[in-house]
């Protein structure tokens, strides 16, 4: 090929005090190429992109943009060199508006550069947002948005930059296929105009849909670059995880006895209304629905996080009085929250103690926590969820997102929770780990635990669930048995095909 | 034997400063290399710096080395304690303390006694166990100003008090002296007694508010000069200069200037430099082995424009003037 690479990495190495996150990463990307960066959690993808975008510096090696050596001292330098980045974690200021966030650092100015031109910012922000979700109002404070909407804002922000390289680190982790479709169109357009795109995602179908080339990383090393237009998905996955992943069928462990019974449950603070369902021992119940349909809110109600307005929850026939998460936890309920960074982790504390937090008293003897017991349990459980790197004393904030997720799952195993509420359990989790988590869920069911899984990924819902509850507008729209489960039926119940004209499209986004 | 808790105002075993020489003879020779340590409340107020000047002055004359230290702020009781303890540790021959509170230097008294170092309590708060006290009567400050009002404003009227920091010994005593004396005269009415916290700005604001409600006020008594100088500005701003009498306490140089300029009505000067000299003299007499009365009373005087020339100006020998005052008071 004669064109110079738009972006070329040469021997990029990054060492942290206790891990080598990247070693000798070398590959290049051409203009107009959509290049996937693939690898398990902790493989070093985000680390590489953070170096590219000037957020951190490589220990050694260099990279070139359009053949020019790049030496970025801060994100601003990278931006000037034409690099736009969507970070894996939302990088937003809660109290500022959507538009202010999108123009943060480089506001449009007026009055001779003195004042911020709010109107123009909002106009342009609206235009960028409209490409994905026109319902987002650029003048609302970002803290009022749902995670999914906030992620759309992050994407739109990157679109505003007119960059020649756009790095996207799991841009769709909270999005539904519908939004991904819009993004795919945008990416195609950008690629057509010569922009190089680096795309990181654990959703393989997305990757294969839009990416031309893919570089596979494992434990900080580049394993190789493959042409995704020709390669087989299973081969690529094998490259990533170092082994073949079997496509597994759903296993059912449903017992007869009803463990959880929810009757007429309504929220005191959100739009969840009149929800009734049951979950049996060993049953995995999936909850599907559109963004904003109230799935998360339902789980928060069950976990005692949100206040119950009316209705009843009983476990093993005993009615619960849920006043706070603690009461739910002692009733054997454990919640894997949707927004890991905000609701999940205590950043500066070690993984082991993040895991043990709700069950500390179980590890205590005469009021003193036996850290040896914590560590023993942590080693067992964190191994079971396959934490990587396996360093249980490290502050959790130093782990990759997927590994943080695993630690929170382990938290409820440690607490011995019988009823597990998983909100988007595989968000940001690599394919290998994903199948591990599926196994884990199945194992839990096999042990007789009851699991409720909220997921925006329909294949996941179908793969895991014995039964699926479809939610719409805060209410249950349908309960589908295993044999009825197809993507088609779920979607039609979620959007309410039966009564097509009652749909409020500002609240609810197109597809599941 | 245990000493009775000291009340510097009523203690029987006392001597007036002017009588020191008459009673104990000329100043004796002190041992070579005598070191005297002064521990002040704070140096942020001119009064305490002047006191230190007096220490140095007399110390130099008598051939003693003087160290003068102060806490970092007026409320820093433990800091002052640390300083005083340091002086005991480093073997000063005599220590002069002006405690922040009645109690905060108590341990030093004990430690010094063990180490056989005499301690002189100089002014302000009075440590009950103090064996030696040099200073004026705080209460008397307020009394003198109250008497001025009774003498000079025979028709009576409304008066207001700007107090120092809540709970501080000098502020409590001065206020009490003024209040009780003026309270004996039914023509006067204390319409306000509010805290100025030794702070000029707060006193200014308080005075503004008081004047607004009581434009017919006849006077202010302030627990120190800094506050009085704030109050006088408020009086000026209200256009009442000359109508409202304002008194301060301490006799700092700015107060004198203000009196000369016809603004401040008066201040109760307790002559810090002279007090310092007397205190040092007493301390060094103790070092020389003399026995001195438990309380040595130092002078104070109400300074107004009328008698200002007598106490301040070129060629005024304040010591001689006050000696004469003392003699005539006898």
């Amino acid at each position, binding site marked *: 090929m004669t064109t110079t690479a738009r972006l070329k990495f040469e021997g990029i190495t990054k060492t942290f005090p206790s891990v080598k996150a990247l070693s000798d990463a070398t590959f290049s990307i051409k203009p107009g190429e959509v290049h996937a960066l693939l690898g398990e959690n902790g493989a070093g993808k985000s680390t590489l992109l953070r170096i590219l*975008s000037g*957020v951190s510096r490589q220990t050694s090696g260099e990279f070139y943009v359009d053949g020019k050596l790049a030496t970025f001292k*801060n*994100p601003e330098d990278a*931006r000037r060199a034409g690099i736009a*980045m969507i970070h894996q974690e*939302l*990088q*937003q*200021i*809660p*109290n*500022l508006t959507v538009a*202010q966030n999108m123009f*943060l*650092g480089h*506001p449009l100015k007026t009055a001779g550069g003195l*004042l*911020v031109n709010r109107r123009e910012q909002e106009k342009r922000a609206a235009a960028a947002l409209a490409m994905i979700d026109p319902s987002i*109002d650029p*003048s609302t*404070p970002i803290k*009022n948005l749902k995670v999914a909407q906030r992620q759309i804002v992050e994407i739109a922000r990157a679109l505003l930059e007119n960059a020649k390289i756009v790095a996207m680190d799991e841009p769709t982790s909270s999005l539904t296929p519908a939004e991904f479709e819009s993004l795919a169109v945008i990416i195609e357009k950008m690629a057509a105009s010569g922009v190089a795109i680096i795309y990181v995602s654990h959703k393989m179908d997305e990757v294969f849909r839009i990416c031309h080339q893919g570089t596979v990383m494992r434990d900080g090393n580049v394993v190789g670059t493959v042409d995704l237009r020709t390669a087989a998905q299973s081969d690529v996955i094998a490259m990533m995880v170092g082994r073949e992943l079997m496509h597994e069928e759903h296993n059912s462990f449903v017992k007869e006895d009803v463990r959880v019974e929810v009757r007429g449950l309504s929220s005191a*603070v959100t739009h969840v209304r009149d929800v009734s369902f049951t979950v049996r021992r060993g049953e995995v119940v999936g909850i599907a629905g559109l963004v904003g349909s109230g799935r998360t809110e339902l789980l*928060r109600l069950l976990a005692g*996080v*949100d*206040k119950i307005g009316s209705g009843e929850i009983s476990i093993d026939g005993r009615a619960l009085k849920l006043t706070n998460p603690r009461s739910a936890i002692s009733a054997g309920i454990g919640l894997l929250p949707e927004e890991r960074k905000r609701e999940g982790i205590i950043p500066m504390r070690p993984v082991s103690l993040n895991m043990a937090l709700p069950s500390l008293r179980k590890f205590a003897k005469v009021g003193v926590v036996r850290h040896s017991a914590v560590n023993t349990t942590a080693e067992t459980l964190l191994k079971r969820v396959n934490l990587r790197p396996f360093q249980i004393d490290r502050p959790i904030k130093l782990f990759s997102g997927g590994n943080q997720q695993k630690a929170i799952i382990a938290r409820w195993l440690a607490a011995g929770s019988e009823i597990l509420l998983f909100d988007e359990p595989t968000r940001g989790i690599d394919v290998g780990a994903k199948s591990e988590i599926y196994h884990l869920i199945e194992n839990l069911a096999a042990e007789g635990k009851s699991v409720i899984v909220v997921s925006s990924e329909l294949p996941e819902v179908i793969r895991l669930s014995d039964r699926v509850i479809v939610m719409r507008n805060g209410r249950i729209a349908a309960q589908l048995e295993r044999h009825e489960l197809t993507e088609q039926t779920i979607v039609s119940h979620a959007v309410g095909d039966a009564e097509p004209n009652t749909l409020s499209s500002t609240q609810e986004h197109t597809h599941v | 034997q245990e000493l009775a808790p000291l009340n510097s105002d009523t203690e029987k075993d006392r001597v007036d400063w002017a009588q020191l020489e008459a009673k104990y003879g000329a100043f004796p020779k002190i041992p070579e290399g005598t070191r005297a340590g002064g521990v002040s409340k704070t*140096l*942020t*107020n*001119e009064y305490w*710096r002047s006191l230190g000047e007096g220490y140095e002055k007399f110390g130099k004359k008598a051939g003693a080395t003087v160290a003068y230290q102060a806490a*970092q702020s007026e409320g820093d009781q433990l800091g002052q304690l640390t300083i005083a303890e340091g002086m005991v540790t480093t073997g000063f021959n005599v220590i002069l303390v002006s405690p922040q509170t009645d109690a905060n230097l108590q341990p030093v008294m004990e430690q010094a006694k063990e180490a056989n170092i005499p301690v002189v309590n100089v002014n302000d708060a009075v440590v009950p166990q103090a064996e030696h006290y040099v200073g004026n009567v705080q209460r008397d400050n307020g009394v003198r100003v109250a008497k001025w009002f009774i003498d000079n404003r025979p028709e009576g009227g409304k008066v207001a008090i700007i*107090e120092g920091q*809540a*709970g501080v010994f000098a502020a409590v005593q001065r206020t009490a002296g003024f209040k009780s004396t003026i309270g004996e005269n039914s023509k006067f009415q204390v*319409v*306000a*007694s*509010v*805290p100025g916290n030794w*702070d*000029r*700005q707060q006193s*200014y*604001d*308080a005075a*503004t*508010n*008081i004047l*607004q*409600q009581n434009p017919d006020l006849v006077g202010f008594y302030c627990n120190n000069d*800094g506050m009085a*100088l*704030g109050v006088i*500005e408020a009086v000026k*701003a209200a256009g009442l200069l000359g109508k409202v009498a304002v008194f301060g306490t301490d006799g700092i140089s*700015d107060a004198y*200037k203000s009196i000369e300029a016809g603004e401040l009505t008066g201040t109760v000067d307790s002559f810090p430099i002279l007090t310092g000299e007397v205190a040092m003299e007493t301390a060094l007499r103790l070092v020389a082995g003399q026995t001195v009365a438990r309380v040595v009373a130092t002078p104070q005087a109400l300074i107004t424009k009328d008698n200002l020339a007598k106490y301040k100006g070129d060629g005024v020998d304040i010591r001689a003037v006050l000696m004469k005052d003392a003699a005539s008071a006898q």
Partner: protein
Amino acid sequence: MSDIAAETPKRSSKLFSSFSLRDAGTLIGLIIIMAVFAALVPGFLFERNLINILQQSSINACIALGMTLVIISGGIDLSVGPTAAISAVLTAALLVTGVPVPVALLAGLGIGAFCGLVNGVLVAYVGLQPFIVTLGTLSTYRAIALIYTGGNPVLGVPQGFRSLFNGNVAGIPNSVIIVAVVAFAAWVLLKKTPIGEYLLAVGGNEEASYVAGVPIALTKITAYVISGVLAALASFILIGRLGAAEPILGNLWELDAIAAAAIGGASLMGGKGSIVGTILGAIILGAMRNGLTLMNVQAFYQLLATGLIILVAMMIDRATRGRG
């Protein structure tokens, strides 16, 4: 439990942003306090007394405006009092030696800015905690003011300077007008300019700001410099009023200013604060002092009332706007 409060977001409508709702809470607090005093103190609501209250609040308001910006940026400035003192004694000393007023003013503002700059650099570049940096400079600056003057006040500030800060225009004290102008400028800065957005951003999420290319260090330093300059300005108002500059002036100003900002809705965690709220907060504190003095409340009980009113003001505010 401010964060958990997010669990029950009571967003009513887009028209009322949380900002103005919050200010309404502060306003209600002020109105209640004014009403109580009006009932207890005859003449409390006279125009003359209201102007008094404004004038007496002006110094604290001026300091509190700077404090609000610093707090929004995620910092705190405990050194405002000593900064004011340094600036006051320097300006007064220059004026007394006959330096023209504008030059002395500039020198005073300049030294205020410099004090702020030192704070800002230590926070932003050296990376120390704001509380501890300004606790250190609190002592350091005070010591400098004391050493410079030997502990004595600087007297004899010329009338020309005094009337500039202590005069009236149509019955409104100049100090009130000055602070009103500063407040408006601060409001524009915070709501309309890039730097205001940066302040909110840095205080709201520093990492995200960094990633977005916000000049973090510059933003923080700006906040501290403004705080220093406003401390200097406040000291001018004070020496205009008192005619003298004391090296010990400004003692405990930081607490009053922080109280005003907090009552006005600033969060000491950063990222949140309101100019209007701060001004209202300063007036609440001023009205309280004024009312207590007029009622001739004894010192100990004034102290008690001060503490309780701060607590009650915060509770009223919390009650009117709900949690969060």
